[in-house]
């Protein structure tokens, strides 16, 4: 009954470049109480999957955008009413097209009858749970009404409710069924209409919609809901209209259809756009990782013990890349319109495969140029872990200036990754493999030694970066890795 202010839940702006999001799951249903900042729903954008906390306290009054729908940022997804409020019924609604053949002839009975009970906030020793727990108006269907509706195949939204906030009471639905057609006159002392209820001798394990006496004029057609002729249009909102389903592709034998997640769609769009934008060229170089391998062997237990960090090859490579990028501002830059943009900070993106193998996310380690080897190792471990557990903040997947991708974990030794727009390059790191390697001994003689060798690739945008520049960049990284100066890093 109360018409206190409602709080709108909107699709949040998950970073500047995100324009829309998909509802993956509502964690609360209409009628449920929610505290401020309690998790209300999960959304998925092309950047991140995240949970949305409640903007206020109260009762989830209605859900306007159902799960699976994709809407623009700022779209109202639902409303939260004040605790103890009655939700939807009294809220102004845009008119919803009535189901065909139903004439909105009669004016619906005012749900004001429910106000008969005095509801002043008396500090009586009596708790009145209903005013605290319901607050959900017509959206709420009590257990007995749900059962009767199921048994009789009645759509409760078609029944005029006389309960609090227009809730359909047991009497309402029984009268509705008994009348067979005519609208129930909303009055309390109606004849006790318990007849159509099946005898319930025991806690009946319910819903079998069959053995219920139906009004004689009704043919028990499956699927058809017995809608009485002149029905007063219920004063309630219908659930929000479903999105237009896209035409489903034809399936051949043995084929299975799976909808694209928002993330997959985002990846698909981005990959295509990147290839359409940049002139991708890939150069590769072989790096003797002996020094790094030795150093890692030494540092790993130390860092683990003192900092709880597993220092990986990736951390060394990233550290070397950062140092090298300082000297190649264009590779850390971008083409913006007709101009070349360079910057002093290096925000290193790391491509992280999600645990289920069905997605990729690129969290960014901001200002990597300020981090030493330990800092980078910690940072990479942190963002990778949070990427997999979906705990990244939206801004942590944005603002990258250069990206490292590391498909070498599976043993691949070469690849041509796609640039993350609008960056100018992406470094690929591959498996460290022991190879026979020609080196010079102390005497200046060529000898064959067994060395841990890694391929590094730089895929660059040839619009901005020439092949020679890329070659020098790769050469310098190799130099840093092969002659790693522990003190300098």
């Amino acid at each position: 009954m109360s018409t206190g202010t409602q709080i709108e839940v909107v699709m949040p702006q998950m970073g500047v470049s995100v324009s829309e999001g998909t509802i993956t799951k509502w964690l609360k249903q209409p009628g449920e109480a929610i505290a401020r900042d309690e998790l209300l729903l999960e959304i998925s954008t092309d950047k991140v999957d995240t949970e949305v906390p409640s903007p206020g306290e109260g009762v989830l009054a209605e859900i306007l955008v159902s799960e699976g729908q994709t809407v623009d940022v700022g779209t109202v997804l639902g409303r939260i009413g004040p605790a103890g409020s009655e939700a939807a019924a009294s809220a102004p609604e845009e008119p919803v097209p009535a189901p065909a053949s139903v004439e909105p002839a009669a004016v619906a009975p005012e749900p004001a009858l429910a106000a008969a009970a005095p509801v002043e906030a008396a500090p009586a020793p009596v708790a009145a749970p209903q005013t605290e727990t319901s607050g959900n108006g017509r959206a709420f269907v009590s257990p007995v009404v749900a059962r009767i509706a199921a048994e009789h195949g009645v759509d409760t939204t078609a029944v005029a409710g006389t309960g609090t906030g227009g809730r359909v009471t047991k009497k309402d639905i029984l009268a509705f069924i008994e009348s067979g057609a005519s609208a129930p006159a909303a009055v309390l002392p109606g004849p006790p209409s318990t007849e159509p209820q099946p005898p319930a001798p025991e806690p009946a394990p319910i819903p079998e919609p069959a053995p219920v006496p139906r009004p004689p004029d009704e043919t028990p057609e499956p699927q058809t809901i017995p809608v009485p002729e002149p029905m007063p249009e219920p004063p309630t909102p219908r659930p929000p209209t479903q999105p237009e389903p896209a035409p489903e592709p034809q399936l051949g034998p043995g084929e299975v259809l799976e909808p694209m997640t928002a993330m997959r769609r985002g990846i698909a769009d981005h990959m295509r756009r990147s290839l359409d934008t940049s002139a991708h060229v890939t150069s590769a170089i072989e790096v003797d990782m002996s020094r790094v391998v030795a150093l890692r062997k030494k540092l790993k237990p130390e860092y683990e013990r003192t900092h709880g960090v597993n220092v990986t090859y990736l951390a060394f490579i990233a550290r070397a890349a950062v140092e090298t990028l300082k000297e190649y501002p264009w590779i850390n830059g971008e083409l913006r319109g007709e101009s070349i943009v360079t910057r002093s900070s290096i925000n290193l993106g790391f491509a992280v495969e999600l645990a289920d193998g069905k997605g990729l996310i690129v969290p960014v380690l901001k200002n990597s140029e300020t981090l030493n080897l330990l800092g980078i190792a910690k940072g990479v471990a942190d963002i990778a872990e949070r990427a997999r557990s979906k705990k990244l903040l939206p801004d942590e997947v944005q603002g990258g200036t250069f990206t490292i991708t590391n498909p070498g974990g599976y043993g691949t030794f070469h690849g041509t990754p796609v640039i993350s727009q609008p960056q100018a390059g992406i470094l690929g790191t591959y498996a460290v493999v022991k190879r026979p390697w020609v080196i010079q001994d102390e005497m200046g003689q060529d000898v064959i030694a067994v060395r841990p060798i890694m391929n590094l690739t730089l895929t660059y945008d040839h619009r901005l970066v020439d092949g020679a520049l890329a070659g020098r960049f790769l050469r310098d990284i190799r130099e840093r890795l092969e002659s790693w100066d522990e003190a300098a890093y």
Partner: protein
Amino acid sequence: MPELTYIQAISDALRQEMRRDQRVFVLGQDVGVYGGAFKVTLGFQEEFGPWRVMDAPLSETAIVGGATGAALMGLRPVAEMQFADFISCAWDHLVTVAAKQFFRGRTPVPIVVRLPSGGGFSGGPFHSQNPESSFAHIPGLKIVCPATPHDAKGLLATSIEDPNPVLYFEHKHLYRRIKGEVPEERYTIPFGQARVHREGDDAVVVTWGAMVHTASDAADQLAGEGFEVEILDLRTLIPWDKARVLESVRRCSKVLVLHEDTRTGGFGAEIAATIAEEAFEDLDAPVVRIAAPDTPVPFSPALEKAFLPQVEDVVKSLQELAAY
């Protein structure tokens, strides 16, 4: 049929049982010469003699312990607590010995402990309580809470016959306030059978003891509003008439559980939980409880009125149930 007060019915029942069965005797503080704190046994010592109407020392432990021993030896003691509140002194004998003796040793303990209980007369925290739920939690005890003179008599006879320890809660506020027709001849009322105090289909109030009358007054007010409330008087809490309660829930779909005991852990919680478990799909509204707040019983008449569930409280909750 003579019209008796609630306390007269108790007195009559006790006298009738003592005349009928030589094994029945009473013991308690001042039950003899003085006739009991509330005069239930007035004149009993003259009729039955000091060996069957025994004045006990000021020790509830001794009274319940002595009654238990006598019962083990084959007698049918009816012990009186001056106030139900004092039974906590006898907790150990009652809970550890009497309630478990048959389980442990296969020797029944057919004692009755009469417990003048309840508030409404500014008796304060030590003379007003309704401790039935504490004992309802103890397997082996039976709990009787009559609301009318007729039930008071019939249930006391059943209590004395019963081979188990029975706690007989007689509500002091009903003693001289409530009158009703009571047959002169002996009769018993089986345990575990609720009584329909008032018929109705729109909501059911499940209650017992003095609150039956509070609910009744409230229901009468609402009848003018076209809302017919059924009142179920449980009469006994252990055992309680679950089947009858569930039947009413299925019919009415709206339930108010009302008791004078404090709220948390009160027996109403057991009833509400059972309804939720076994009749969930028949509910058209949340189960509502009305009980005293979780505080000691205040002395002040104004505070005690706020403490005890009042007719207007019940009316208000029933109106809210009606509108729900």
